[in-house]
């Protein structure tokens, strides 16, 4: 077996040394404009069976340890601070509905959300302000960050657990929309629901 070529080694070393996940563009820039896509794919495949994996999270690449070795590594690493239930729900609502305003989060949770709850998520680097909704009051809307995807091991939001199913069953639609859809369906709502 020949050794890996120079570009492959360079991409490997660059990502290995990087303190943050890197986009394809950033890697390429760092390596003088080389096309690194093929090298990334080759490296990801190469490391597939190893103790270290090369993964893509939100269009950014980084090395991380293989998930199945978690039990060996966890002990000497500080366990991430436990999120409150409110924060967890908030995070899930933002991730599955983004971009979403605080009022929309509250409509789903049926309870006021303390300002600190979203702040905790922003502080963790998982949630960012994604602008304002162009409706009266111009509320701030929130979305997730690449760091969120990286933390939860998601290549993109499409990988959110069960998101396709939730979308298909209309569970990501607001109650009004879902209600109107049911009524428009003309069937007995209960039947319609129970078909699932």
């Amino acid at each position: 077996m020949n050794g890996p070529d120079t570009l492959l080694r360079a991409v490997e070393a660059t990502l290995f040394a990087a303190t943050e996940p890197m986009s394809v563009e950033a890697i390429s820039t760092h390596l003088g404009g080389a096309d690194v896509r093929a090298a990334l794919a080759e490296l990801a495949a190469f490391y597939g069976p190893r103790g270290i994996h090369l993964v893509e999270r939100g269009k950014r690449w980084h090395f991380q340890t293989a998930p199945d070795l978690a039990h060996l590594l966890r002990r000497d690493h500080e366990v991430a601070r436990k999120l409150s239930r409110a924060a967890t729900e908030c995070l899930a609502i933002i991730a599955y509905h983004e971009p979403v305003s605080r009022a929309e989060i509250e409509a789903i949770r049926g309870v006021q959300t303390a300002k600190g709850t979203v702040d905790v998520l922003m502080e963790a680097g998982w949630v960012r302000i994604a602008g304002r909704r162009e409706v009266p009051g111009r509320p701030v809307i929130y979305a997730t960050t690449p760091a969120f995807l990286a933390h939860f091991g998601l290549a993109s939001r499409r990988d959110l657990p069960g998101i396709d199913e939730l979308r298909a069953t209309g569970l990501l639609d607001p109650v009004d929309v879902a209600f109107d859809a049911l009524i428009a369906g003309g069937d007995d709502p209960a039947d319609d629901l129970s078909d699932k």
Partner: protein
Amino acid sequence: MSELALAGGAAGEQLFRQPAAATSSLMLEIDGWEGPLDLLLDLARRQKVDLRRISILELVDQYIAYIGQAEALKLEVAADYLVMAAWLAYLKSAMLLPKEEQEDPSPEELALRLQLRLQRLAAMREAAARLLARDRLARDVFCRGAPEGLAVDRRALWQCEVFDLLQAYGQVKARTAPVVHMVHDRKVMTLDSALARVSAMLGLTLDWVELRDFLPPLPLGEGDWADPRLRRSALASSFVAALELAKQGKAELVQDYTFGPLRLRRLGVAA
């Protein structure tokens, strides 16, 4: 209904086991629910059926019973919970009415909306649980412990050629060289000497003499007087001397036409 009501009751009994500490523990428990919808969802789950098939009537009974118990202990129950209890009581009574007497929006619609809300909250709660169960960075998978880091040093590559260098030095030298205005020592005929010469020459003759004739004649002007610049100076000085003598009343001047020869003679001869 009875079984489900018991389930709710059991939870209540657990809570109220220690009456002395009841105040804080109940509030704590109410706080433990993230609002009335959360409590409703919890009660609905105890029906142990699909959320789409839950009995709203049973749910309403359980909720009202639960809040009733809390109130029975004369504890403050958060307003949100009481508002929800009142709304559910209204919903229940409307649902028990014959269909034709129902108001708009119909209790079925309200019940369906409540059901849809519970489904959405349940879906998000489940999604959150699945999210948190993933292989999380810094908990299940780890980035490199001690990355070297990537650094880009922006270094200026200064450009300067020999010519630039020499030109710059030349400019410094030229700029800072002391500036001296040299006034050349030029031969002139002073007004005093012209005055002396013209006065002396006027004394020799009574006739009109042209101004130019007062200048030293060229043959005599060997050397310095050959210098045309000195001659022009002498002419100018002689002219000023002539004006001065005329002013003093010692001479008179005539010029027959513009730019014509200027003639001069001693005054007092005619007189």
